[in-house]
């Protein structure tokens, strides 16, 4: 019964977001950019057609690719690995249990009163940020609407993806506050009104800085030996770890704060 309710809520949310996305429409006017760096920041020169429906930033295509890969991977694990779980775990089982257990522990420690949904949210967010940041290392190519081949960037280096992530985290915190404490919960969440902006731009800034440095390094042929390995490790692997941890920890902390039961 509880599962059915959750599935219905999830489907409703997906449908609502799709409808809103279609209704919202594209911006009427695009900025003109001249420099390569500005294109890396704004993603408004190279657009990719999304199933012929709309021209979107490469970051959105990257995000969808990451989601698809993650869901296929999760489905394979669900079918092939999880049924073979044993009381004495193997290496892969330990890895999966540690992954789930780490976010679950973080949720329980940060929000002792209400943490079931929080565990799921920070697990999904952490996995998404980590995987999508590593995604740019593979350099998958896509064809733009102008017929140019571009390497798909990390989704969160697109400001739209970062804003989506920051706003979703904030909305999730507000939702938790409302469910737990009603009006008081909304008050507590609104008190942190700068949170969506700080979360969004922290992600965007961190990922973008990595992207810009990488672009600069790749721009010059002299710097394209050995150095990309170090730059790749520094700005991709470390960002993947740090940004996953920062966003999930902040979400868990604020969620725990707004869902704390009223005193007295």
């Amino acid at each position, binding site marked *: 019964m509880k599962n059915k309710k959750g599935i219905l809520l999830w489907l409703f949310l997906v449908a609502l977001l799709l409808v809103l996305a279609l209704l919202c429409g594209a911006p009427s*006017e695009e900025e003109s950019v001249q420099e390569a760096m500005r294109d890396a920041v704004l993603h408004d020169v190279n657009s990719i057609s999304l199933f012929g429906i709309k021209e979107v930033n490469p970051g959105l295509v990257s995000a969808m690719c990451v989601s698809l890969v993650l869901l296929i991977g999760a489905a394979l694990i669900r079918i092939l690995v999880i049924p073979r779980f044993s009381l004495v775990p193997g290496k892969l089982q330990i890895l999966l249990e540690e992954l789930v257990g780490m976010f679950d522990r973080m949720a329980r420690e940060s929000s002792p009163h209400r943490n079931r949904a929080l565990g799921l949210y920070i697990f*999904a*967010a952490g996995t998404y940020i980590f995987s999508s940041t590593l995604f740019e290392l593979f350099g998958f190519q896509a064809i733009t609407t102008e017929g140019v081949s571009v390497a798909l960037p990390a989704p969160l280096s697109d400001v739209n993806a970062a804003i*989506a992530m920051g706003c979703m985290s904030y909305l999730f915190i507000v939702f938790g506050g409302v469910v737990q404490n009603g009006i008081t919960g909304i008050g507590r969440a609104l008190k942190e009104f700068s949170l969506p902006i700080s979360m969004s731009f922290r992600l965007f800034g961190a990922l973008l800085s990595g992207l810009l440095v990488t672009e600069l390094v790749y721009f010059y042929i002299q710097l394209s030996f050995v150095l990309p390995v170090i730059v790749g490790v520094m700005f991709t692997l470390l960002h993947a770890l740090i940004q996953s941890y920062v966003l999930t920890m902040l979400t868990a902390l604020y969620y725990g704060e707004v869902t704390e039961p009223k005193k007295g």
Partner: protein
Amino acid sequence: MNIPLNIDWQQILLHMMNFAILAGGLYFLLYKPVKDFMEKRAAYYQELSDTAKKRISEADELKAQYEEQITKAREEIEKEKAEAIKENEELARQQIADAKKQAERIIAAARAEAERDNEKALHDSQEAMKELVAAATEKLLMKNDNAAIDMFLNSVERRGKDAEQG
């Protein structure tokens, strides 16, 4: 509408939708099954732990009971031992007293018998002496030795007189 940084609300919502699908999929395919398994395993080990604790507690109770029983048994044994020693000592005392009485009785009987034997022997010897004297007297008489008889009679008479005077 010209929004700075090329922010596109439609793409933001598409990103949100993408993440919502991913979160739902990850929940059903990965998070929930793994968490369920971990909870089941934790419950299994918790049950094992509870059972072990319960058994240890029961064993402790049994041990305490047995120790109490052993203590009681030891006390009872000590008590019975003391009683047995006391009874034995009493019995020994009684037996010694009986033995002494019996010994006294035997000694008394032996003395009485010895006296009787002594008296009988004395009587028998006196009788034998009398018979010997009578026989000797008869022999002397048979020989008609008057002188001797006179001498004897005189001597007896004299002794009788001495005895009367003394």
